[in-house]
């Protein structure tokens, strides 16, 4: 479960060196340690988890703050100008929920990870409600990088993988720009060599 910027000698170089274009880029400026449930019964895999950038939390929280500000502004206009005092109640609920997500977010972000294995990519998230998904490289139909305006300011982006099954949508948020590009190139190269029908 440790983070290791070098290609470990123990890992049997699952992807050929030609396939891994820039593997060190995946681990630059990310969280050092994955956070999981303490229970022994948790889901656990052997191998190196790559993690996401802490800037993801900052970016998301800035977005959340902007959202809170907008909600409060609307509520204030309704209450003070139009004398609709009930507006504070829904606004309060929304703000409370947003604040709770803001508090949880750093924990959640530390639990997000992905592992490049020999035949598949495994994505995991969640501490209390843990989820892991393995998608074989050959099944990947499309790799998509998206970046919002705030994400761009913080230099992070989201990578999305699409397969023939609608339910396998894997979205890795908060990758640094270089990591996202390196990962995309790696995935596409590996998918090329392992392409099957569908």
């Amino acid at each position, binding site marked *: 479960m440790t983070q290791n910027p070098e290609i470990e000698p123990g*890992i*049997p170089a699952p992807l050929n060196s030609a396939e891994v274009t820039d593997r060190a880029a995946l681990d630059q400026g990310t969280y050092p340690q994955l956070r999981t449930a303490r229970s022994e019964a948790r*889901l656990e895999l052997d191998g190196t988890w790559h993690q996401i950038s802490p800037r993801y939390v900052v970016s998301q929280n800035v977005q959340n703050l902007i959202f809170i500000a907008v909600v409060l502004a609307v509520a204030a206009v309704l209450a003070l100008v139009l004398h609709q005092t009930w507006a504070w109640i829904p606004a309060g609920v929304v703000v409370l929920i947003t604040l709770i997500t803001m508090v949880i977010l750093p924990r959640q972000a530390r639990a997000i990870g992905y592992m490049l294995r*020999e035949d598949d990519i*495994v994505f995991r998230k969640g501490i209390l409600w843990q*989820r892991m998904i393995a998608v074989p490289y050959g*099944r990947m139909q499309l790799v998509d990088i998206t970046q919002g305006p705030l994400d761009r300011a913080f230099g992070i982006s989201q990578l999305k993988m699409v397969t023939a099954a609608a339910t396998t949508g894997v979205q890795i948020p908060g990758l640094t720009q270089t990591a996202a590009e390196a990962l995309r190139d790696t995935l596409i190269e590996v998918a090329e060599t392992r392409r*099957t*029908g569908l």
Partner: protein
Amino acid sequence: MSEHQPPAPTGERPSAATARETLADGEWHRMHPLTPLFKGGLALIIIAGIAIANLRDRLIAWFVDLFTPEEAQYDYSGGDPVDWVLQNNLIVIVLLSVLGLVVVLVLIFWFVWRFQQFRITGDHVEVRKGIVFRSHRRAPLDRVQGVNLTRPFPARIIGLAKLEVVGAGTDSNVELEYLATPRAEAVRTDILRLASGARAARLTAADAAAGVRSSDAAGSGTVAPGSARAQLVGSMNAGVNDLISGVDLADVEPESVVKIPTGRLVGSQLISSVLWLIFFGIIFGIAVGGVAIGSLIDGDPIGGFLGLGITLGIAIPMIIAIVGITWAQISKSLRYSIAPTPDGVRITYGLLTTVTETLPPGRIFAVEVTQSLLWRPFGWWTIRINRMSGKSAAQQSSGSAQQFSVVLPVGKRADVERVLALILPDAPVADIPLVWEHGILGPVEGDPYRTMPRRAWWRRPVSWKRHGFALTEFGLLLRRGIVWRKLAIFPLARLQGVSLSQGPIDRAQRVSGAQVHSVQGLITGYLSGLERDDALYLLDRVSSAAVAAAARDHTHRWGEYVTDAEGAQVPGYPVAGADAAAGVSGAPLPPPAPPVVQPAPPVAPPAPPVAPPAPPVVPPAPPVAPPAPPVVPVAPPVPPAPPAAPAPNGE
């Protein structure tokens, strides 16, 4: 109606003499001239319906006057447009304008027809249509998921058919509508032949088959040369003949066809409709009971006729609904047949609207055998599949799309076995007991299924002993349900991924949920409350097994390997099947051993079975051009990796 305009280079219709000539010549061809009538026909019917509805009273008056004596004439003056026309002597103008409308419609139809063309080249099938908003759709042939030949009832009478080339994706079908049935069949053959990747070798065989068919066609006078009228008459005759004689199955091996006796089909649907009857019966009981209680409380007992009226008023629509539902089900499944062809499984069904689907090998993502409680005394089963339907999301949820996923509407065990052998031809022999004795018929002592542990029983209080999975080299089998028995088979070569989920309660019980991902369809792959180690074993093994299975699987270009088989050895499944039969059948499968021990063993034992198929893949690679080279790099990394992984790195 013949070609003397630029956009159509060579639109020659096949005459009896040239029926052998393929339509897959890379030129643009036209649809049948009556196509717009059927496509725009709905609008015409609606307009006619509105007109008739508005003039209903007048029509009734005319009709009544025809049959009544002079003195009892029905005096009608409704003040509708007809009166106004008659009063103002505008009959000629009105008739002229109606004529003009018809001419305009015919012109529009003609233009629509002129601009609708299709082309089949070596690698693609293309359709272009539209006048103002042009659309041009091109689909790669090696991604064809199936070809459906649909003959809706009205089009069937005059011998037209719609050909639907199913693509891999949402709203990705290419529809050729409508073609004369023999043409549509020829086009289907061409598309499947090209999609199979078999070129010269299969072409000669197909020519021979086409020769047989063309003599058939000539005999029944199906394709008439020359004028559109002759063609229309010919196709009309063929349509009527066809309607009487049933679906043509001349080009398939008759002995392998599974046919369902009509009695069984009707019986199974009637039994299913018992459920509907109970459902409506409850509603009926509540309604009638409510009325009766209400009248009793009021102290005003309802008269006999009133009570009868209320009862019938509720009961009759319900009975009509039940009959309607049951009839729809039966008429859809009547005349069902399934047969192997060189290009895949061909399934035909439908009494009025006939659908013939051709499913090439390797286009089935999941198969499920189910049996409801009411069917159990009769030993009936139904088989459904998950496949790419190429339809948009809205169409996918409709009833007709669900029909496409039923492969066997009802069948006994022997039928089920035959159909499974047809649709999963590459399943190894060793897996068969897993499907029947261990799988469908429920838990057997010592079967390799990994089921829900006793402590998690409350998640599936009745079926927890059955609820589990088995992983073989070929596929992942999910066994679920005891009242509604289900066995799902997910071929590994087309598995899209596996996910695990574990909430706090799961973790306290040391279990985990698992979901197998496949394309959208009726079969879901969810298992709850698996032993945590079993779930991790699934996640660990499925991907590598899937890669190995995909390396062995060449069904996406099935023809290339079939032709190879004639000369040399087929690289794929025969080897795997022999291997499975010889090596694995003795000790059923690796699964039972590893669960207790941690990561190292589960990786090691399955490795040998993976390795043997790899070498045979390499020799035939040079002659075969497209898919083989990618296979080669995949195979070598497999054997070295697993042994190396756990030893130095075990954390």
